[in-house]
């Protein structure tokens, strides 16, 4: 077998993943912190103030990466849910369920920073605009997945049911998104695009991209940490978990 494929197959095994994630978590957190510090320096000091919004636009450097991560985490959760349902891989169930609270937190931060920015700029904390509303619906979808996962006793069955709900959500997400867009729109259009030139000055763009990179790395660090704990809980009866515990004489006196 091709070594990369072999490694990928090995990664599906909980003890292997536990050790792998344990090795990577400190590095990921370090990279995320350094990149975030670098990005925030750029965002707060080197990027010029916006000619219309002044300094209040700088909240975008938290808002936009978190908004991207909210969507990315949902897609990651749904992709892992799909793998978990089709190939019954235990690790994918764990990863899908571990990414739900992280994604929900990112979505929540997006909503909070958005309304903090909206107050001075639009003059209101909240408006029923397309993007705000679909972000709110996304948060509710996350809550649904998390709620369903915690409502079912059996952990593996709960993960499969919640993963299925996440998949139903993915099918519905475009419909929800476009229905909301046609319903009402005030939020500005897309300024950063992968294809073609971005409509943003380069001096403002690079901190944004650095912070987006930092949040991605942070997402995986946080995901790995959550998944490790979840795996220990799920596999608590297994030999490899017992081997991890400090060797103690089991005495009953």
């Amino acid at each position, binding site marked *: 077998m091709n070594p990369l494929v072999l490694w990928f197959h090995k990664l599906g095994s909980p003890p292997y993943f536990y050790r792998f994630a344990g090795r990577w978590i400190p590095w990921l957190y370090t990279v995320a912190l350094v990149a975030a510090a670098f990005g925030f320096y750029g965002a707060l000091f080197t990027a010029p103030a916006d000619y219309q919004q002044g300094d209040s636009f700088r909240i975008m450097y938290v808002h936009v990466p978190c908004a991207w991560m909210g969507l990315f985490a949902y897609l990651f959760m749904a992709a892992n849910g799909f793998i978990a349902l089709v190939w019954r891989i235990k690790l994918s169930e764990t990863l899908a369920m571990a990414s739900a609270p992280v994604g929900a937190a990112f979505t929540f931060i997006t909503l909070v920073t958005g309304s903090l920015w909206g107050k001075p700029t639009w003059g209101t904390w909240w408006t029923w605009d397309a993007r705000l509303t679909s972000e709110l619906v996304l948060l509710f979808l996350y809550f649904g997945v998390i709620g369903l996962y915690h409502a079912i006793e059996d952990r593996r069955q709960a993960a499969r049911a919640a993963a*299925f*709900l996440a998949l139903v959500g993915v099918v519905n997400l475009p419909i929800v998104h476009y229905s909301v867009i046609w*319903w009402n729109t005030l939020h500005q259009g897309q300024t950063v695009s992968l294809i073609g030139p971005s409509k943003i000055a380069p001096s403002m763009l690079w901190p944004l991209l650095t912070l987006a990179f930092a949040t991605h790395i942070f997402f995986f660090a946080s995901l790995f940490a959550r998944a490790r704990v979840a795996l220990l809980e799920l596999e608590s009866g297994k030999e490899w978990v017992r081997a991890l515990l400090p060797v103690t004489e089991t005495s009953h006196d």
Partner: protein
Amino acid sequence: MKPGSTSAACLALLRRDLTLVWRRRGDALNPLLFAIIVVALFPFALGPETTVLARVAAGTIFVAVLLAMLLSLDALFRSDLEDGSLEQLVVSPHPLALLLGCKIFIHWLTTALPLIIIAPLLAQLLQLPPQVLPVLLTALALATPLLSLIGAVCVALTVGMRRSGMLLTLLVLPLIVPALIFGAGACNAAQDGFAHAAPLLWLAAWLVLSIIVAPLAAAAALKISLS
């Protein structure tokens, strides 16, 4: 029709579910009463001015109907789970999606259709302009099956839980937002004298997609829940 064939099984299931609803026809009236009471609360809260009520009428009726249906959705599979017939459906040789489709159809027929029938009464209570009524009825006829179908998928995921009511609401409502937007949007457009065909067509397109996909999804969800 040969006994033992799939169509005979579907017919038997339809007849059984209808009989069950008929035997407990008092319960079947609850969603109607709920919708009427919710609609009747709005004039108390908003004041009796005709213009204000007419402005919010279509949206209010839509929300009331969706909530009334949501209330009854919880019980979609409950009695079948308790008496064991749900497991029989799952292990039967006939396609589960088709059988669930029959159950969803009965749910729509016994819950949504009465609500659509009393919708003109609700419209009168809230002073909806008469020319909007046909649009409202069409939108309800397209949006209520969607709620039955999407709701059935979520009910299948929560089946067997003791207190699933609040959770079910949390699962269904975000997914049903487009039905509300398109349905109430068509009514508001008609009220303002704009073209209203496009949102209705979108609703219809989504309904067609859901009729095909939702029973399959409900079957898959039920197999996860009962595994």
